[in-house]
């Protein structure tokens, strides 16, 4: 005869509500683990998908994701000349927050090296890749920008031509793909007044030096657009992505590039490691701490409920002792109740999670291995939680049953 099940049936209301509470707590524990997995997935998603063998970034930096990196766009041509390099692409990545239709719109802007890279590698769920050098964009569905939507960014208007799903940056913001020149235009967009002031400042600086006074035409040039002044550098990009020729010696290519003092080179794996050890590490520790706290809270709640249930039937336990029930029968009653509470709570957590996790603002990835390890944790905390009740039950004297 299973006493635990019969007692639970008798106290079904309390059991159901407690299990529901435990289930919700365990769902949060499960969700925290899933959010951590999601962070890793999101952080490494772009690095995985972009298909580069090497990342060339600003020397001495660990860009372009872990920190800001700025290199000359012309570096692309230098890299192409290195033996073993099949292709080099400019890469621009930055996060912007604008207002669209009265609501804040935060997105990660990725620049594709038009015309070589039109975004064919981007996993589209609707629409198409870029077909024009300007004014087209691919947007992730999380940004809620329908196909054909016109989005004003700076002084230009971009049309959404393609959709991705689940393509987000390390901060969870949806990715958007533009041509590099558009991405740079969005990044360097400044108000007209600022442009006019900068041009005036350039002219004033030139007037202060002798060459400006001797060459009046230079003053006119200085007050013109930046792009028409050869002395000014072209806009800078975040990185240059290198694709190696089939069979090329990656170490040799890397060694060649590493000799250039103005850049740093990272492999795809190193980029992922930079992301995980830097940006994701603190989030991981924070989530881990929360998980530990929630598990401790769950243990305490189960322990208190089991203890209360034990106190409620202290006379019944005394009676069982009086009629000769072994400690194993009494301990088993309490342990089984605790395990059942943990098991039902765990199952409930899983079921609720199936419905709620997809609606979380961040991606939640629950791996089978995480479910198994959480199952073991629930087993352990349920066992630990029963100890207080068992301890109380084993201390009960049989003659307690005789007291009024």
């Amino acid at each position, binding site marked *: *005869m299973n*006493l635990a099940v*019969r*007692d639970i*049936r*008798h*106290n079904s209301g309390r059991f159901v509500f407690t299990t529901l509470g435990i289930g919700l707590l365990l769902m949060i524990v499960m969700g925290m683990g899933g959010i951590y997995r999601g962070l890793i997935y999101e952080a490494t998603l772009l690095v995985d998908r972009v298909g580069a063998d090497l990342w060339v970034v600003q020397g001495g930096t660990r860009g372009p994701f872990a920190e800001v990196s700025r290199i000359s766009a012309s570096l692309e041509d230098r890299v192409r000349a290195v033996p073993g390099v099949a292709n080099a692409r400019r890469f621009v990545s930055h996060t912007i927050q604008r207002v669209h239709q009265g609501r804040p719109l935060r997105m990660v802007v990725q620049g594709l090296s038009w015309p070589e890279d039109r975004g064919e590698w981007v996993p589209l769920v609707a629409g198409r890749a870029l077909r024009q050098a300007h004014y087209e964009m691919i947007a992730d569905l999380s940004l809620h920008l329908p196909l054909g939507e016109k989005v004003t960014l700076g002084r230009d208007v971009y049309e959404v031509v393609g959709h991705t799903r689940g393509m987000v940056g390390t901060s969870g913001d949806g990715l958007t793909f533009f041509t590099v020149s558009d991405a740079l235009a969005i990044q360097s967009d400044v108000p007209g007044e600022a442009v006019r002031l900068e041009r005036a400042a350039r002219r004033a600086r030139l007037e202060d030096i002798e060459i400006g006074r001797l060459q009046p035409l230079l003053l006119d040039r200085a007050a013109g657009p930046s792009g028409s002044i050869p002395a000014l550098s072209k806009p800078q990009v975040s990185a240059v992505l290198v694709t190696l020729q089939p069979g090329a010696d990656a170490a040799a290519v890397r060694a060649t590039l590493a000799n250039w003092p103005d850049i740093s080179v990272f492999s795809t794996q190193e980029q992922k490691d930079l992301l995980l050890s830097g940006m994701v590490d603190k989030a991981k520790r924070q989530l881990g701490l929360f998980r530990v706290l929630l598990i401790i809270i769950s243990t305490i709640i189960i322990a208190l409920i089991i203890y209360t249930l034990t106190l409620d*039937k202290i*006379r*019944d336990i005394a*009676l*069982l*002792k*009086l*009629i*000769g*029930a*072994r400690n194993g*029968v009494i301990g088993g009653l309490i342990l089984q109740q605790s395990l059942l509470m943990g098991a039902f709570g765990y199952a409930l957590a899983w079921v609720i999670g199936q419905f709620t996790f997809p609606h979380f603002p961040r991606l939640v990835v629950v791996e089978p291995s995480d479910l198994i390890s959480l199952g073991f944790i629930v087993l352990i905390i349920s066992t630990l939680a029963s100890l207080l009740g068992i301890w109380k039950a084993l201390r009960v*004297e*049989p*003659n307690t*049953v*005789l007291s009024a």
Partner: protein
Amino acid sequence: MSAPAVEVQHLRKVYGSGHTEVVAIRDASLTIARGEIVGMLGPSGSGKSTILTAMALINPPTSGQVTIGGEAVLDGPKALVDLRAFRRQHLGFVFQKANLIPFLTALENVQIALEVNDTAPKAARARAMELLDYLGVGERAGNLPVALSGGEQQRVAVARALANNPSLILADEPTAALDSQRGRQVMELFAKVAHERNAGVLVVTHDHRTLDVFDRIVDVEDGTIHERAPSQTVKSS
């Protein structure tokens, strides 16, 4: 001739020590034969319950011996056997309150006493049903205690006490919570059990209306047992 159901000799129970010392039992000796039902009377605080709990092996005496079914069980506070196992196999208990486990049905309340004594569940169920039928509450087997009347609950408690064919049944004021009619029925049930099942039965009671069911009556006063003379026993032979 079989050994007595229980034999206690020179029981003494002292609580506390020094100036807080309280003597609950001074020198109590009692023998109950198998098939005999004995009533134990006495005022509150006289030591009845202490004697009963000592015989029940849940409150060992300070000194004295307890022998049950011919087997020495207690020598003073020292247990000579595994007391819990011994209770399981040889003793049955009935109390003022039925003390049924509230989350078990009447049948299960009896069945559990058998299962803790290693009876297989199926056999335990059959035996429990047989006992409930014997005590006239078979038709209430599937009910939880809360759905049973006081008298029915007490019958289930008696069935539980009988489950393992104990050589000794100890009852502590089993009719106190019942009306006179139900009380008499329960007392007659004990007498029936003692005589038909050859068990020794000791009933602690204050209920003078049912003394006629006892084979023998003992009085407890100041921690000492006094055998009541046969002429003082109400029961007609």
